[in-house]
């Protein structure tokens, strides 16, 4: 029995296999419509995240399965003080697989150590969110046709952005990736990501303050939200939030086949005018998220 807690739990071969399955689901959805008939997914959301929960639930329904669960902690036994370990043991009696969202980092790992069914980490605090990373990888693969030999720029909050850390970690296994890290001084990538992933794996990377300067070189641009709750000072937040906005003007120097990704939700870091540009891939990324979750649920349930 396997769980997915951290993107590093998957080998490159397994990621390729998931992407292949997801692509096949996109081509032949009817082939998969009954694959999980009679199976139940428990969505245990100790903090609300409607977008992620709906993606998991839609994925399970499209596989012909059923869904049960809760969408916030006060409607669950956690509000009565039950431990994550006990909750996951109990839910193991009712469901076949768990998708868990929790505000505390490491909670899904604790769940996987105690559940008798597979656990998928659907986001634990500011720590991991491996299915978002899988959605990102599937989107890059579909848009660029490859997961090696490309230049990707990460723009915005690189200090706290867990999706950025996790995607960098996943990309570290592929050949010839160049990474351009674009952020204000206040939100640069943490040293440990540089030391333990980029330098350790000999990945070419550059740090810059300017999105415009980096633009011409990029094959993929990964935009992130600069989150208000990360700042103590409202003025700092507004100044930083507005310094990295992607608009059509900044895109003038971009490659014709650039793929623009964003884990969503966005605030204003991508101007809505960009949505109609064919390089905007962030809504496709949402859809890809559902397909890769379908592939993942099948893999963990060992459904062929």
């Amino acid at each position, binding site marked *: 029995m396997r769980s997915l807690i951290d993107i590093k739990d998957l080998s490159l071969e397994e990621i390729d296999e998931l992407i292949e399955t997801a692509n096949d689901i996109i081509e032949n959805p009817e082939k998969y419509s009954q694959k999980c008939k009679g199976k139940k997914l428990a969505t245990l959301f100790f903090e609300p995240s409607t977008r992620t929960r709906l993606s998991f639930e839609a994925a399970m329904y499209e596989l012909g399965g059923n869904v049960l669960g809760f969408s916030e902690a006060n409607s669950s036994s956690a509000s009565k003080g039950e*431990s*994550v*370990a006990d909750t996951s043991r109990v839910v193991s009696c009712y469901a076949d697989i768990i998708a868990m969202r*929790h*505000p*505390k*980092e*490491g*909670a899904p*790992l*604790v769940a996987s150590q105690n559940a008798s069914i597979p656990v998928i980490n659907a986001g*634990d*605090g*500011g*720590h991991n969110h491996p299915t978002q990373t899988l959605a990102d990888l599937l989107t890059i693969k579909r848009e660029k046709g490859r997961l090696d030999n490309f230049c990707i720029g990460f723009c915005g909050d690189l200090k706290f952005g867990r999706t950025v850390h996790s995607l960098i970690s996943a990309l570290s296994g592929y050949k010839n990736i160049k990474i351009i890290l674009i952020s204000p001084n206040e939100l640069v990538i943490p040293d*440990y990501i540089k*030391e*333990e992933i980029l330098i350790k794996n000999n990945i070419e990377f550059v740090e810059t303050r300017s999105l415009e300067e980096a633009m011409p070189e990029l094959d993929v641009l990964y935009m992130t939200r600069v989150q208000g709750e990360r700042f103590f000072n409202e003025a700092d937040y507004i100044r930083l939030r507005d310094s990295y906005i992607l608009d059509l003007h900044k895109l003038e120097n971009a490659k014709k086949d650039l793929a623009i990704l964003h884990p969503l939700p966005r605030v204003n870091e991508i101007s809505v005018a960009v949505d109609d540009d064919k390089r905007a891939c962030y809504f496709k990324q949402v859809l890809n998220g559902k397909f890769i979750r379908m592939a993942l649920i099948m893999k963990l349930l060992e459904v062929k």
Partner: protein
Amino acid sequence: MLVNPIKDGIVLDHIKAGNAMEIYHALGLDELDCQVAIIKNCDSAKMGKKDILKINEHIDINLDVLGYLDPGITVNFIKDSKIYDRKHLELPMEIKDVIKCKNPRCITSTEQELSHIFKLSNREKGVYRCIYCEASAK
């Protein structure tokens, strides 16, 4: 200064000078009633100065705790006044309930019954990370 050699017991040698008391407490030697000699600031050809702990009894020592605190220590096991076993320590791959995770967002901060487990993530720099939240121990 003279400390008699011990006949049966354990000698912790090459302790970084000044660390002897920390190790004395970490191993719980203050709670045992066996004889312990704490020798501070001895001259050492290898280290300049070093500390030594001599424990006049065969007690169970958690070598992971010891390796985490000071990987340079040599542990000599002595029987009938002879060294019958010697261990050179290194940083352990995993330590359990030796240090606590200080990350307030970590699940261990709210669920008291969980063990605090850290894994070695960078041997050269001696960096340990919490297995739950990956926060580093230092």
